[in-house]
């Protein structure tokens, strides 16, 4: 079939017209191979412009469309819609950006005109090799799997279940609630936490949209956005795993604490009355803060940043709960002396500072320290440390509370393996992009919330859970089909030699290996179309729709003409 390429140059008001000699462009290109028609128009993105284009495509019965106008970032979509409306496959169109990267970058009209001509020729050369691409639509399952029944998982589940979304909540412990159930009060508000938590757990148990699995763990999660197949098995019994499908997964497996025994100088596990923050929370919640001998402590040292150097990051929450601890102590034992030994105070946020100011002073002091060592001195503990000026100091206390670093949950790597989500250097799950997609992951439809992603306080955790729920509710709507990327990679069965190079470099696990045929296969639903595999494939078996070798090569040719 004979190609009939229509070329339309947008004046973009004065924006292009004043900088580029459009008539010269038209004159130069009108006689080019396959160019059936070339015209200019005041403003193609305007209502009139779109109408004009639509009529032209039909009237001239074009097989391909080239528009010379602004950046694809601005109006590629607009013109694709027009072309589709006019019955021309939107991928048979190419936009030449003669504004941002041509008209606007030089004062020399002649140069701009020359460049415009080259850009348009490149687009014409390219569009010749375009082929129609069809939007894919696949059914999606709106249900959601939430891994982890701590505060993060609970919140996500509720946010999803309230608007009638079916949720499967999997917790490996016998009860829901996670770490926070050990806390008596919340930082800042100093309000009792238990009623909040219990309230939420109560709601979970009464909401029939939520199916709770306790004493259970996820055994398998295969598939892609909208279509994951899940297997859950009990940890306390040999039952057959339960199977169900979901459309999205929320990872909320929380975190654990750095093992203070790894730092013998703190004497944890060997000395009496040296306890971790978590042990202290429990002790406090039980109602009685006391030493081994049953007596209440007269003096307490809280040592911050335990294991920070080893882990290489600040755990963000310790300073705050240490202040909370000081408050617990002073409320319950008015005469107690509390010394906070910190290496750096981290009290961010609009309000947290207040509590610090309140706590400081009466019986509670904050000391910047380094190189602490704890030893026994009679029935007390001696904390030797260097103060800010490096002079050695010895502090005698009854009790030492260690604030160990927050670590990734024990089974993080196992979950990582099952879900294929990448763990960063610190072992926490890596978000897709800290700014663009902070709770998404490399696998569309799998989200990470709470301390699974990194150390966080409760409010930050709740925010993430709600964000994840919001993302799922808006992207995974019951009955609505999902539209995966169209410009995906494809691998020629004839040319693939099965070296698995593409598998190793694909960030999305979009390529699988067909063991029987010994060739790589692209899962077009998962592929995001970056083209990395295409450049990596030596045998030219991989190619990417709309960015094929021949298509790009036409642009290269124009550049070297």
């Amino acid at each position, binding site marked *: 079939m004979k190609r009939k390429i229509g070329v339309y140059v947008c004046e973009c008001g004065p924006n292009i017209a004043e900088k580029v000699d459009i008539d010269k462009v038209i004159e130069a290109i009108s006689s080019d191979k396959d160019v059936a028609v070339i015209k200019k128009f005041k403003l193609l993105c305007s209502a009139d412009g779109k109408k004009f284009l639509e009529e032209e495509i039909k009237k001239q019965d074009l097989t391909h469309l080239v528009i010379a106008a602004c950046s694809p970032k601005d109006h590629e979509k607009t013109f694709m819609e027009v072309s589709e409306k006019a019955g021309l496959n939107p991928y048979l169109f190419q936009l030449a950006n003669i504004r941002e990267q041509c008209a606007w*970058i*030089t004062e020399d009209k002649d140069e701009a005109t020359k460049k415009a001509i080259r850009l348009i020729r490149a687009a014409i050369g390219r569009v010749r090799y375009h082929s129609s691409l069809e939007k894919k639509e696949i059914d999606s399952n709106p249900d959601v799997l939430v891994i982890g029944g701590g505060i993060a998982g609970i919140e996500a589940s509720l946010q999803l279940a309230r608007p009638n979304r079916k949720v499967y909540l999997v917790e490996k412990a016998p009860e829901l609630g996670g770490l926070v159930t050990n806390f008596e009060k919340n930082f800042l508000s100093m309000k009792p936490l238990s009623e909040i938590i219990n309230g939420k757990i109560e709601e979970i148990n009464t909401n029939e949209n939520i199916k709770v699995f306790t004493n259970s763990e996820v055994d398998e999660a295969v598939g892609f956005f909208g279509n994951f197949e899940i297997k859950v098995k009990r940890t306390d019994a040999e039952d057959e795993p339960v199977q169900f499908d979901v459309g999205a997964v929320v990872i909320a497996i929380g975190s654990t604490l750095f093992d203070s025994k790894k730092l013998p100088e703190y004497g944890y596990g060997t000395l009496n009355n040296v306890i971790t923050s978590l042990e202290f929370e429990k002790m406090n919640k039980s109602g009685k803060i006391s030493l081994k001998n049953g007596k209440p402590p007269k003096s307490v040292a809280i040592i911050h940043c335990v294991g920070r150097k080893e882990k290489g990051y600040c755990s963000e929450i310790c300073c705050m709960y240490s202040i909370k601890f000081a408050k617990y102590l002073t409320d319950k034992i008015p005469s107690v002396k509390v010394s906070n030994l910190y290496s750096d105070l981290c009290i961010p946020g609009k309000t947290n500072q207040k509590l610090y100011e309140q706590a400081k002073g009466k019986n509670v002091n904050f000391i910047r320290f380094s190189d602490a060592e704890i030893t026994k001195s009679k029935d007390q503990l001696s904390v030797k440390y260097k103060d800010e000026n490096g002079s050695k100091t010895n502090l005698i206390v009854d009790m030492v509370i260690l604030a160990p670093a927050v670590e990734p949950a024990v089974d993080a790597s196992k979950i990582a393996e099952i879900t294929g989500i990448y763990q960063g250097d610190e072992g926490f799950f890596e978000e897709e992009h800290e700014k663009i997609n902070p709770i998404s992951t490399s696998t569309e439809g799998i989200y990470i919330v709470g301390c699974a992603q990194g150390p966080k306080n409760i409010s930050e955790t709740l925010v993430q859970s709600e964000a994840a729920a919001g993302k799922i509710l808006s992207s995974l709507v019951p009955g609505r089909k999902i539209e995966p990327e169209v410009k995906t990679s494809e691998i020629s069965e004839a040319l693939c030699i099965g070296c698995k190079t593409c598998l190793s470099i694909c960030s999305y696990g979009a390529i699988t290996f067909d063991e029987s045929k010994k060739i790589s296969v692209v899962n077009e639903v998962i592929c995001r179309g970056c*083209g990395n595999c295409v450049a990596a494939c030596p045998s030219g078996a991989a190619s990417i729709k709309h960015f094929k070798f021949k298509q790009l090569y036409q642009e290269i040719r124009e550049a070297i003409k």
Partner: protein
Amino acid sequence: MEKNEEFTPRILAFLCNWCSYAGADLAGTSRLKYPASILPIRVMCSSRVDPIFVLRAYLGGIDGVLVAGCHPGDCHYQEGNYYTRRRFAMLKKVFEETGLESDRLLLSWVSASEGQKYAKVATEFTGKIKELGENSTKNKIFL
């Protein structure tokens, strides 16, 4: 330096869609000026740039090739640009070892907000290429 006074180099710029192409757009919307001879080719990710493309362009007589992508760690596809960097390093090494002018190849990270940087890179690279003069492969016969 006075050689090729009026020689306008043919320069090819592979720009990744998410960072560098947007950066180049920004240079325009901020009305920054840089040599018009540079011809952009949009790819979704810099990792799409097969060294073979660069080779073809070079032997075809291109005067310079710029490959630009998101800054390491900012790749829209997570890791693409790390692979780009390795392939580019290899290609450069092949050029150096075979005595080809590896200075005609440039890898640069330009984010969507770095219109300034793009204009700067484009200008400086063009200047460098002007110093190098025309790519002599242009009129070779026995390729």
